[in-house]
């Protein structure tokens, strides 16, 4: 911990008695410090005299990491302490504003529960007894363990998992250089259905809406006012203020629903029928864009045939939305088109038919020809697109002969390797088939909470010889690990550069690390070298890595540190390409009927499949986000926790009355695999056949003092059910009973 000292402007004040006295003390300080045998370990002679020091507020640009949106921010630092975080007005993701989580980033840095040193387990796994280790000792141990696993069982016996972050590419570099194909990410737990639904239709999932010009938006399960995507949330509010009509499908009356022109408390899974009916009406009434469909789509006739029977009346009982209103939405959407779009969302209603629902949404947009039109769907050119960064010349990765444990591509032939099916990977570790896994390296991820059916994940952990966690907090997964490697927070470290379109942004330390922690880039390098993978980790340090990235961009690192970002001029040719109608599908057109899906035995066009409803007296268990929290990673943040210290379970007054449940009562929520206890929130803002809670509470790690034992974790009762096409977990398929915890 050091403090940035700056000279006070000269000429102010004379030599006061106090300053004279302090000057005297300072002059003898050196002698005092030297007089102690062994010196002082935590205090040293300052480089400047006290009367030369002044509090000086510095603003340092960097990139937020309180969620995955990566807003640009400016950290205000005084005396080496971060006193305020503000949105960077030049960053397209924040535009000068930060969400509640972004503002509370200070408390991620100054959370007293942070991991402060490498630790190695000394008791039984899960007992929570660790000892301090040096970085060398901990890394040697991990590397030795990984080498042993590789030699005895092959590299595939090592599982690696990570969530979405800037250093993820280097983590993947480590994984591929080591040679394991077994990679677990958050993707199948979140957006596989959307990514694949749009990719199978448009050839890309990198799709956004033109909020500035739109007149009509349909959201399905997307709650942008709680699941904040800063700039997009700002866009939505601006669009509403401008008069755009917003339709929200959600079994719950969300904050976004409260701003909507129409809110439909749709039956979970019935959303597919709703969108099929919208498509039916648009086709039947001839409201589609004939020119666009003819020129840029394929499979029209197959679609028409399949949708023939899908009238609003047909859909009504499936989605619980009146036929007349479905017709009205179709009419309004078509009238507003092409200045209208149905949002891709993240995972629709999160059921077994979510993939086909996403397909139906993609098709709805295609029928009205809103692609690249003002107010319609746009390729977002989001992160990773645009500027190409420099990289090191590396040898090819070793060939991986082993099949993946998550069933990709044998069981899930269309799921991209990059996405994977994380829950299947966990299940394969548990079964020990087709081959046993022996180690798991976890980078900034918390599978013990994020994967459904926590008991099963714990069981899988017991099969392993080595579990290593890299994180900033002592979360549940760290608690069950053998080695914990503490990472510096995003305000203390560099990360690989962030590219947004034609801009490149720098995450840089705004204060030095408070504890004995390291950046992910350094941890991967040190581990990679111990594994003998020198050619894959050629950078000397983080700055050297970033300088190599900047070789293709005309800005120096020093300049980038000051500005926080660099913007490259967009060439006209590139702008022209933007306007082209090119689709990376097998036929080069938008696929209303997908040949690829047909070839592997799936439905080429969306087809309705009735999903089981809850038995009498039971509920769909729904989960979603709140604005103050990011998954399971922010509950220990004291500023955020003050607002939502625990999660509750939403239940409709009718359902509550039958069970004698009053607002604030403790209730049991029980599924086939477990039971949790939560406080009831009795509200009309939810369908009577659904209950809802937010995810991320119910931490078992007592190292998280703020959030330990607060609320309960939905993963304890969520069954692991998987959409067969996209590999997405189908959380809303779990049904539960609810009853009072005490009479």
């Amino acid at each position, binding site marked *: *911990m*050091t*403090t940035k*000292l700056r000279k006070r402007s000269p000429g102010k004040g004379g030599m006061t*008695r*106090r300053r004279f*006295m*302090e000057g*005297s*003390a*300072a*002059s*003898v*300080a*050196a*002698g*005092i*410090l030297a*007089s*102690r045998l062994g010196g*002082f*370990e*935590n*205090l*040293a*002679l*300052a*480089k400047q*005299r*006290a009367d030369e020091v002044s509090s000086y507020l510095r603003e340092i640009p960097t990139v937020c990491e309180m969620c995955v949106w990566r807003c640009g921010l400016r950290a205000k630092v005084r*005396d*080496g*302490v971060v006193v305020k975080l503000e949105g960077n007005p030049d960053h397209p993701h924040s535009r000068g504003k930060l969400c509640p989580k972004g503002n509370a980033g200070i*408390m991620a*840095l*100054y*959370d*007293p*529960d*942070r*991991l*402060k*040193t490498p*630790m190695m387990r*000394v008791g039984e796994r899960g007992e*929570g*007894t*660790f*000892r*301090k280790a040096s970085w060398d000792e901990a890394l040697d141990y991990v590397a030795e363990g990984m080498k042993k696993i590789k030699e005895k069982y092959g590299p595939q016996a090592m599982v690696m998992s990570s969530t979405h972050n800037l250093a993820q590419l280097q983590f993947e570099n480590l994984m591929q250089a080591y040679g394991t194909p077994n990679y677990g990410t958050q993707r199948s737990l979140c957006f596989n259905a959307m990514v694949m639904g749009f990719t199978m239709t448009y050839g890309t999932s990198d799709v956004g809406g033109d909020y500035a010009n739109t007149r009509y938006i349909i959201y399905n399960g997307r709650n942008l006012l709680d699941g904040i995507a800063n700039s997009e949330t700002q866009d939505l509010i601006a669009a509403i203020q401008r008069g755009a009509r917003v339709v929200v499908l959600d079994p719950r009356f969300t904050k976004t629903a409260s701003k909507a022109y129409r809110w439909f408390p749709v039956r979970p899974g019935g959303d597919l029928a709703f969108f099929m009916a919208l498509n039916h009406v648009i086709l039947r009434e001839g409201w589609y864009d004939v020119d666009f469909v003819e020129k840029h789509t394929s499979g029209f006739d197959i679609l028409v045939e399949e949708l023939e029977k899908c009238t609003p009346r047909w859909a009504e009982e499936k989605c619980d939305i009146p036929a007349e209103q479905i017709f009205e939405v179709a009419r309004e959407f078509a009238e507003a088109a092409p200045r209208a779009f149905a949002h891709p969302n993240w995972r629709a209603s999160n059921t077994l038919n979510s993939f086909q629902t996403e397909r139906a949404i993609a098709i709805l947009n295609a029928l009205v020809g809103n692609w690249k039109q003002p107010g319609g769907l746009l390729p977002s050119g989001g992160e990773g697109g645009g500027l190409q960064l420099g990289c090191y010349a590396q040898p090819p990765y070793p060939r991986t002969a082993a099949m993946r444990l998550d069933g990709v591509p044998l069981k899930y032939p269309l799921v991209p390797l990059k996405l994977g099916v994380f829950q299947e990977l966990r299940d394969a570790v548990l079964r020990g088939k087709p081959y046993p896994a022996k180690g798991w390296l976890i980078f900034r991820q918390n599978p013990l909470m994020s994967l459904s059916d926590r008991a099963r994940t714990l069981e899988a952990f017991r099969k392993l010889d080595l579990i290593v966690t890299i994180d900033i907090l*002592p979360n549940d997964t760290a*608690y069950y690990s053998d080695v914990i490697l503490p990472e510096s927070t995003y305000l203390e470290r560099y990360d690989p550069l962030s590219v947004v379109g034609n801009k490149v942004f720098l995450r840089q330390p705004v204060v*030095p690390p*408070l504890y*004995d922690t390291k950046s992910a880039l350094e941890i991967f390098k040190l581990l990679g070298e111990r594994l003998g993978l020198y050619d894959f980790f050629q950078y000397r340090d983080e700055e050297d890595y970033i300088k190599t990235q900047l070789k293709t961009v005309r800005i120096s690192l020093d300049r980038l540190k000051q500005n926080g970002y660099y913007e490259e001029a967009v060439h006209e040719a590139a702008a022209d390409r933007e306007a082209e109608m090119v689709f990376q599908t097998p036929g080069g057109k938008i696929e209303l009927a997908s040949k690829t899906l047909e070839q592997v035995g799936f439905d080429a066009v969306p087809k309705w499949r009735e999903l089981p409803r809850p038995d009498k007296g039971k509920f769909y268990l729904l989960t979603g986000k709140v604005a103050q929290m990011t998954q399971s990673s922010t509950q220990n943040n*004291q500023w955020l926790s003050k607002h939502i210290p625990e999660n509750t379970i939403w239940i409709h007054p009718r359902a509550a009355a039958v069970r004698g449940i009053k607002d604030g009562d403790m209730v049991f929520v029980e599924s086939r695999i477990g039971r949790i206890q939560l406080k009831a929130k009795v509200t009309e803002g939810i369908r009577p056949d659904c209950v809802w809670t937010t995810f991320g509470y119910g931490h078992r*790690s*007592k*190292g998280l*003092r703020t959030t330990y034992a607060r609320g309960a974790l939905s993963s304890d009762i969520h069954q692991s059910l998987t959409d067969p096409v996209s590999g997405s977990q189908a959380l809303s398929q779990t049904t539960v009973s609810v009853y009072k915890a005490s009479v």
Partner: protein
Amino acid sequence: MLYLTTRIEMLELLITAFSRPREVLAREIAEGSFSTRIVNRIASCCEGSSRCCFPKDLIETIRKLPDEFKEVQEDRKVLTILDAEYLRLFVNDFPSAWVQPYESWYHEGRTMGKAALECLELYQRDGLAPVEGGELPDHLVTQLEYLLFLTLLEKKASSEEDVALYRMTRVKEQHFYERHIMTWFPTCCARVQTYSRVSFYRVMARFLRNFIVLGNRNLHLHRSGFDEGVAHDYKTA
């Protein structure tokens, strides 16, 4: 009455006790020399007095410190025990409550709060700065080090008969005790006494608690009218 030399020596011992344990400390605890040094210091401060500054049972407990490690043959094992306990108590732990060694936590529930900033300012006034990679400015050991610094300064002023420096240093000590040490050390020590599984830390926490109470009393007993003027000057600057 705690003499200057005794205070300095006791502070040195306390800094060693509450810093991350090293092999030397483990050896000294096991062979008994660490507790002997403390007991001797206590004895020297109360020499010629009918009443000892420290409770008798505390002195007895300090004397018995090596007993805890009687069964442990190797110094390295003693170090492992100390190290694990230090980690559990002061750094990171999972299954049980532990102790936060940062003053800011006791006032604001966080690290690097107002207390840390105030400490930084005090250190800066004395030409000091936290060491990079060392503990935070309001960490228990950093504050003990600053207290040691002030006590050494007091000794220097005293031996050189520099009255102005002596009085100013006493004011600084009083200020540091009032604004910082006394606001959280007692609670922190109580928590260590409650939660430590290793008697070494429990005993050292009790020793520290007694030490600061005595130190604080000592400063107030010897406060003169002139000191008040200097104090006012110092605090309002």
